[in-house]
């Protein structure tokens, strides 16, 4: 299998995506400065229940975001948090044993992860 993504591009993707999410989180931690920005992105709808809850009990809000999320947020959150990188391979096939059937280990391949992604050991 031949992919053409260079390692430099891979690092840019990795750190770029993580940076974006870090900035989003930092923004969400300070409602007074970013609520308009978040509203623009339709990421938070007024009145900002989160802001109200955060002011009322910051510790509880930090740990639970209690009573702050609408149906869209809950739906997207369940979708995003439940669907991980494992989806890319396991649904295509749970194939640990099918790999063993063709003697993968004899060719120096080792089983790498729960997603059954086998990597050729170099």
């Amino acid at each position, binding site marked *: 299998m*031949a992919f053409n993504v260079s390692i430099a591009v*891979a690092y840019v993707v990795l750190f770029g995506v993580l940076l974006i999410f870090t900035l989003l989180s930092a923004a969400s931690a300070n409602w007074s400065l970013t609520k308009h920005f978040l509203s623009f*992105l339709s990421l938070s709808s007024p009145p900002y229940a989160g802001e109200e809850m955060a002011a009322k009990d910051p510790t509880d809000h930090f*740990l639970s975001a209690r009573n702050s999320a609408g149906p869209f947020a809950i739906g997207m959150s369940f979708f995003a948090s439940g669907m991980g990188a494992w*989806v890319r391979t396991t649904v295509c096939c*749970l194939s640990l044993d099918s*790999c063993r059937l063709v003697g993968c280990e004899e060719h120096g391949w080792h089983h790498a992860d729960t997603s059954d992604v086998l990597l050729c050991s170099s």
Partner: protein
Amino acid sequence: MGATPALSWIAVLGYSIGSALPAILIGVLVGPKVRAMTGRYKVKAFSTTDFGRQRYGRIMQVTIACVSGFYMFIFNVAELTAISSIFQTVTNVYSTAFRLIVAISMGVCTMFYTAIAGLPASIVTDKCQGLIMAVLVVLLTLTVTLRKDNRVSSAEFDKASNWTGQGAMAAATLVLAIASAELFNQGTWQRVWAAKDVKAMRQGFAIGSFMVFCLMMFFGIMGLLAYANDPVSYDNGEKFSFLSFFDLLEPLHPSFHVLTLILVTALAASSIDSLQNGMACIFSRDLIKIGWYPKTVARTLVVLLNIPAVYLAGEGKSVLELFLVADLVCATAVFPVFCGLQTKDHGMFKAPTEVGAFLGVLSGIATVLVNGVINEAEGNVFQYFWLRNGGICALCGHKTLISFIVTPLVSLVVTYVASFFDVLVRGEHARSPIFTTAFDKDDVVADDDNEVGVVELTDGDDEMKKPNGLVQAISLPKNKTDHEAEAYA
């Protein structure tokens, strides 16, 4: 599963339904009741460990914490391992150093931004991640299927498209295993308490369930397409079915490979940050009660749990079997824990007691061991948790299906039988926790004005008394502002 013709459609459907079902179970059925039952205490609940403590006692709280913690830890390791493996595959760089860098970056970054803003950050980023994922999946669907190289005729597709008994067994196993396991995913349960109200919770989880189903079907169908495109290579082992989606991506322009990397990174980050928040919330309520700087302790706990996770991911060790162990361990405890939603005796079916529930969990574990002996599992008696029974895939075969049916059933029966005898022998003391800590005794219920008050169970509520000062707010008293209790009832 899509790219394995012996499993094909039914297994893909089973996996999709199994992945979407927990949202319905948690968000629509069980979640509202758990939320209402735990919502009447001065210090609010954060996870089902708090439900376990309030409903049963400390022993079940610790049991739930162990099962949940184990499952979420394994899930976290799996995510870190998967993302680093995918980066290696796409870049063709298979060095351990690169693998470690990806795993450490993911772990550290997600730990950092969850430490900054906690669960609210996770929910906000999840919205963004979900949108990115939805857009990219649509884009990739169009691109992959419109590509001439990936087109197949109906005759070719028929080779991949099968409805098999093995697929049906795998489907049933997946539904049972995933549902059992996800009911212990505190990352999901946190959304129950984060929802504005019960209506938002039900609607939100229904939306999430539908989206999960669609995404899983998408990847499954991609597997079918990949196999149909080149069945000979898959049959003789030149290509591996678990890499079938990459097989379809390969002919595309490199920019689509980059888009796929973005998608996968978003997928992994969204799961990992939710798991980290989930792991941190297990003892949040007690930490708040004790006053042990809960945010700091939660952050420290997340860091401590991530270090071994990143290490294991960097090692590239096989965690599939541990994942299966986690599913089976969760299956031993799912009924004992959630039968706690029954708060009234129904004839011989007594409301489960702590002793009954704990014995139910132990019986589930014993069932797995006995199953191992019957199936002549290799190694010691605990080896059968690894489900090595010759199935064509890790969760395939009738023996695995039987394990996931029998184990929770036995735990269910033992929970009720043990609870019956517990009440028979110990009387009303059976309803009390086996032991309580000193600071449990001032656990009182807050009314809607946030004034502390003690709920007095109404006359006729003879199923649960107030032992040792610990209020068992099982029957929710009528309160004109208690909308949630009215709603779920």
